[in-house]
């Protein structure tokens, strides 16, 4: 359980990190908090000749909140997101999913940007980014682009990031109006990888009609998923007309790569996923209707 030899780089600025990425490309992996990467290196599931440690780059650390968005620097640690009162107010779903990530000692080192760039299908932040319509701010030497969450997660542990690119921050839009948010997750023990989980954001108008819905699923397939069919189905209806169990079933219907493993069959995961959506939906709608 010891990582293989690698060359260690500690760039002093984002520019230096980008230069290194341009030079080393696929041979390099970015190290942030290391809470997913280090176990993979220790078990030698992955081997990289070079590690670029961005953990000391202050410009990537911290949370900014304005009228429109909550912007989280890539190396902001999970426990900071969890405790930040501004986040709890402006992006409640982020505060609510964070306690589900590993355990306190993991959240003290793990970073939001690391979780999103690692793109584990059972990760809480990737699903929250999808459901909330987050945008990833991505830099490479000499250029910057923004990638919507719906385009970002491309496969198991794979993202739209090119080898020379670095995720620098994640922009979460603030949902206005009568909005509610909830997470539901099923795991064998608290902090374990989710067997299935769901995050929900919903906005109601003054007549209790659903005007915005985001349903994210995690732990189900090779990527985090967005239940677009179920979302489209509820838009324009009053929330009292929507049956949460039906929304749950609709959310998992038609998924063709549901994971089967020692935690359960694909059919079991589908059922758990549907139940998690139903649970999170009820809670989110309840919050929105009381807002």
């Amino acid at each position, binding site marked *: 359980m010891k990582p293989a030899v690698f060359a260690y780089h500690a760039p002093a600025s984002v520019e230096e990190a980008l230069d290194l990425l341009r030079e080393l490309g696929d041979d390099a992996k970015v190290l942030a908090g290391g809470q997913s990467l280090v176990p993979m290196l220790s078990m030698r599931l992955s081997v990289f000749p070079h590690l670029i440690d961005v953990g000391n780059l202050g410009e990537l650390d911290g949370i900014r909140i304005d009228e429109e968005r909550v912007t989280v620097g890539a190396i902001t640690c999970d426990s900071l997101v969890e405790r930040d009162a501004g986040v709890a107010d402006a992006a409640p779903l982020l505060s609510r999913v964070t306690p589900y990530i590993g355990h306190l000692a993991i959240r*003290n080192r793990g970073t939001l940007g690391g979780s999103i760039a690692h793109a584990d299908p059972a990760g809480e932040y990737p699903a929250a980014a999808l459901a909330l319509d987050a945008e990833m701010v991505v830099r490479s030497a000499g250029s910057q682009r923004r990638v919507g969450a719906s385009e970002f997660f491309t496969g198991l542990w794979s993202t739209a990031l090119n080898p020379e690119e670095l995720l620098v921050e994640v922009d979460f839009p603030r949902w206005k109006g009568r909005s509610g948010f909830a997470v539901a997750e099923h795991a064998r023990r608290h902090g374990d990888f989710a067997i299935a989980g769901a995050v929900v954001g919903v906005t109601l108008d003054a007549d209790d009609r659903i005007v915005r819905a985001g349903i994210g699923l995690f732990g189900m397939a090779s990527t985090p998923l967005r239940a677009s069919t179920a979302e489209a189905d509820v838009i324009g209806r009053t929330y009292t007309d929507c049956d949460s169990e039906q929304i749950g079933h609709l959310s998992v219907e038609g998924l063709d790569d549901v994971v089967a493993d020692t935690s359960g069959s694909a059919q079991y995961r589908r059922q758990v996923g549907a139940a998690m959506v139903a649970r999170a939906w009820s809670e989110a709608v309840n919050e929105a209707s009381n807002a």
Partner: protein
Amino acid sequence: MPETSGVTAVTIECSVNGTSYRATVEARLTLADFLRERCGLTGTHLGCEHGVCGACTVLVGGRAVRSCLMFAVQAQGREVTTVEGLAGPGGALSAVQEAFRSEHGLQCGFCTPGFVVAATAFLADNPDPSEAEIREAMSGNLCRCTGYQGILRAVAVAAHATASAGREELK
């Protein structure tokens, strides 16, 4: 480029239990192995070496972390506290250590350093926790002997003892 660029061995300086250490280490050396093998502090135990069991929990900058999921080089310039650094002058047990002894919070002792360090960090943040909060806070550490009841009791007793001591000081 800084001198730490592209090297497989790095010279680091950090403080462990108040003592300054300077050492040249392989970049791939974990903080846990650094503490055990280079500092001779074998109180930090290694169970799973991939972040699941919590036996290697130490404090870095006062916060609990898994020392098997951190490279020693990432502790550059930081203050590390291991289980050896928790006792008071003359080896007087800390409130958490005392409570683990009085409440039988250990049997074989392998997981104990991780539990004691995690509980210490938890109670520093949350001095008056509910039972549910204690359970959640300790859920990141595995024990194969005790069945956890003694451990949970120990954390509750330590919280109570610390609160009483605080009240005494205020008088």
